[in-house]
């Protein structure tokens, strides 16, 4: 089985570039150039030094002693939350900025859900002195205020999006429309492994540093270059793609993606696109998505703005269909419990998105000697309102148990 993208931009039956002619020349330019640019020595060197000096890589792979004891396996945390700006999103942004520079694109646009990708983009644009416009759904602006303020302080123009469901899906539509209307000097810096080819591949390559480091770090710590399990949350799928990347062909490694179930996969208020969706086309990509019988795309629901997307990257649709990776759905309340658990056991407040990955530890069969790597894609500062509400409200059982 082959898990990389083919020449036409497909992962099995998923992917491709289903775009209107207005986007063709921009996408074609990217598709024809990205591999040459990204594999050139000078690109690699500049990116390596940026990842080291600016992003703060390598991020630690920390053994989580108390969580391990609680879980019944040997759990390591891949600490993407310690990247500058607080999430893995910066890995992708750093690379795409260098790509944009080499293609002479002077304006950067991006969509954002939780605001993490928007903040990462605004940050690197400030560093590079490039103007930047971020599209963000009105609903997300309301629930991720700290990130909106950060983007503004960094000098980004934040455009509220009021169409459709006012979340990530609609912010992505609006960013694409802006690109159609401003094609020549603009780079659309997409934030996840979604969209038309070559974006899913570009973003997966740029996030693959996560699994590369996991391999190297396990050699140092455990004298083996693979874990038994890799677990990551999946919105569009970029931190998961990066965490799986160098293990895709190594069948010894079991791969698990945690989708956001929202209120539950059977409730209709969910963001579990793989587990509840069907094949279709969203944002120029053939993948699994949530839609009605007439092909209208449904609004997603998740407590976590970064997972609130009705589609999923085509690589994950392919890994799911081929059985190479397993996807499990984590509800809003399971994610909240897991966030509290991690906070009290390890002193790490995770992003709500990442809490889904922690929660997935309970959903897979783990043996005591097995090594499970959980990617902590981001930190929880942006989610304090949601956490406080959960604690003040019904209370969170996990904290009660630990406090007793």
């Amino acid at each position, binding site marked *: 089985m082959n898990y990389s993208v083919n020449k036409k931009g497909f992962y099995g039956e998923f992917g491709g570039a289903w775009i209107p002619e*207005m986007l063709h020349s921009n996408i074609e330019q990217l598709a024809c150039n990205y591999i040459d640019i990204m594999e050139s020595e000078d690109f690699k060197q500049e990116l390596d030094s940026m990842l080291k000096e600016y992003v703060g890589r390598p991020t630690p792979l920390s053994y989580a002693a108390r969580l391990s004891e609680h879980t019944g396996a040997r759990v390591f945390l891949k600490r993407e939350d310690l990247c500058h700006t607080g999430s893995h999103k910066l890995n992708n942004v750093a690379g795409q900025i260098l790509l944009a520079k080499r293609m002479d694109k002077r304006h950067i646009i991006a969509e954002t859900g939780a605001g993490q990708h928007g903040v990462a983009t605004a940050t690197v644009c400030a560093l590079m002195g490039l103007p930047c416009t971020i599209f963000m759904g009105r609903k997300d602006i309301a629930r991720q205020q700290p990130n909106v303020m950060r983007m503004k302080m960094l000098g980004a123009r934040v455009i509220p999006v009021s169409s459709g469901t006012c979340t990530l899906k609609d912010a992505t539509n609006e960013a694409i429309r802006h690109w159609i209307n401003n094609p020549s000097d603009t780079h659309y810096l997409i934030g996840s492994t979604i969209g038309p080819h070559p974006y899913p591949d570009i973003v997966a390559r740029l996030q693959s540093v996560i699994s590369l480091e996991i391999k190297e770090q396990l050699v140092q710590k455990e004298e083996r270059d693979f874990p038994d399990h890799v677990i990551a949350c999946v919105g569009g799928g970029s931190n998961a793609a990066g965490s799986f990347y160098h293990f895709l062909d190594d069948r010894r490694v079991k791969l698990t993606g945690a989708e956001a179930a929202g209120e539950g996969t059977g409730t209709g208020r969910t963001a579990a696109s793989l587990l509840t969706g069907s094949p279709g086309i969203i944002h120029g990509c053939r993948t699994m998505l949530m839609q009605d019988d*007439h092909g209208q795309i449904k609004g997603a629901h998740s407590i976590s703005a970064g997972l609130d997307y009705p589609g999923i990257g085509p690589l994950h649709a392919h890994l799911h269909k081929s059985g190479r990776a397993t996807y499990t759905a984590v509800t809003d309340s399971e994610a909240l419990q897991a966030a509290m658990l991690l906070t009290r056991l390890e002193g790490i407040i995770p992003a709500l998105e990442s809490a889904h990955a922690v929660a997935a530890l309970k959903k897979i069969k783990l043996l005591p000697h097995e090594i499970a790597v959980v990617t902590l894609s981001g930190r929880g500062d942006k989610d304090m309102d949601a956490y406080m509400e959960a604690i003040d409200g019904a209370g969170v059982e996990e904290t009660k148990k630990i406090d007793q």
Partner: protein
Amino acid sequence: MKHMNALTNLLEKKRQNLLSVYFTAGYPHKDSTTEIISSLQDAGVDFLEAGFPFSDPLADGPVIQQTSQQAITNGMTLDCLLLQIEKARAGITIPIVLMGYLNPVMQTGMENFCRKANKAGISGVIIPDLPPDQYEARYLDLFKSYDLHMIFLVTPETSEQRIRNIDRLGSGFIYAVSSSSTTGRQDSFSDRQKQYLRRLQKMNLRNPVITGFGIHSRNTLRTAWENSSGAIIGSAYLKALMREGSGQKAITQLFGQLGLAGPV
């Protein structure tokens, strides 16, 4: 020779000053379709584009986004539109082309869609997010067997080689997008846009070229007519429909705005 396909017949007879109007089916009401079609037909419009709504119209500006959203809320679907047209068939002489995004079509299934479209007397289809190479690989034979034209878009950015390929694969006409933009952006046409349309004219293409996107006034209409075979009007018509509420009043108002006295 008389064809079954009404658009083929039209384009054999008339290759200049063509006027086409786009409307979003299901707007303002689910059952507005017949009134809109007959009012446009009576006004002398040459052919129609009936848009089936999609929740995420990537290539469209605010007007078509809004009408599409309303149409979905009203319960309009692709199947419903095809049934409406089939039922009204006896009174329809004007050629109708369907326009919309690929996802709703995929859910019906392409073959099923072609069969129903043919049965409803549809002449052709425009699916902006279906790229020519995918069409050729997957659907070309199907469209041919159901006598449906597949109409592709070109933009000022489309290379000559690509235009020639599109001319080879597509039929009916070539939809020249006036500028690289979403629908409904209304400026006057620049010299660069005129040059692009003239360049298309000089290419001796198999299919006639018809211009759309941003046509809303006497001037923009004249530019499209002078530099290509015809003009397609979408957002400007829908805006009139939003103000006026009925197809008959909307087309009268649009004709006034375009400086067209009555039937063209």
